[in-house]
């Protein structure tokens, strides 16, 4: 049972244009969502996150949008740069009210982004 899905295995974008990576989830208990970037032979690097109480979070060129009713989130990269070429993982967790909440992550399969010069 795959609770987090990234249906596009790959995406190719021209430098300077917008990259949009999509992620769908099925577990309505998820309340915290993260995007990680992974280069070959390296571990995932945290990129940006969003809480379920928000519908948008922005950090420089990266913006994450959350549509809870559709159980869908997306990552926008504007403008895209060749250095953004990597695998992007969407992840989700069930948080809680703090204390012993330790946020077990459920990952999607990843989307390979290629940004062409």
């Amino acid at each position: 049972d795959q609770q987090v899905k990234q249906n596009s295995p790959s995406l190719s974008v021209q430098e300077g244009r917008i990259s949009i990576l999509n992620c769908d989830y099925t577990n309505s208990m998820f309340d915290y969502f993260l995007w990680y970037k992974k280069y070959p032979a390296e571990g995932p690097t945290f990129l940006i996150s969003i809480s379920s109480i928000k519908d948008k979070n922005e950090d420089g060129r990266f913006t994450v949008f959350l549509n809870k009713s559709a159980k869908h989130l997306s990552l926008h990269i504007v403008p895209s740069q060749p250095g953004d070429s990597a695998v992007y993982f969407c992840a989700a967790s069930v948080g809680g009210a703090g204390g012993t909440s330790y946020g077990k992550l459920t990952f999607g399969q990843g989307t390979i982004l290629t940004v062409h010069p």
Partner: protein
Amino acid sequence: DAMVIQNPRYQVTQFGKPVTLSCSQTLNHNVMYWYQQKSSQAPKLLFHYYDKDFNNEADTPDNFQSRRPNTSFCFLDIRSPGLGDAAMYLCATSSAGGIQETQYFGPGTRLLVL
């Protein structure tokens, strides 16, 4: 720089020969995780430690064990590696206590089983 370190980066072992992968962190995080990632798949959580409390995922094979002797170090022991255990093994940490915690990953150890 505070970080998560995994050694070795590449490990080759023989079928059935026990192997230990190590992870250390300078973030002083109280939660440590081990994930298995096979090619083109999502990272899959094997288990995690919340301080000294060990939490095993229901579908983690008994072949996989873990030890956390102190806050900084965590080990993954594979007692009898099979060909299907060849994968990237990722260690991550987080600082529990907030409402939502971000996990920080090490570079991973790629395990090859011959």
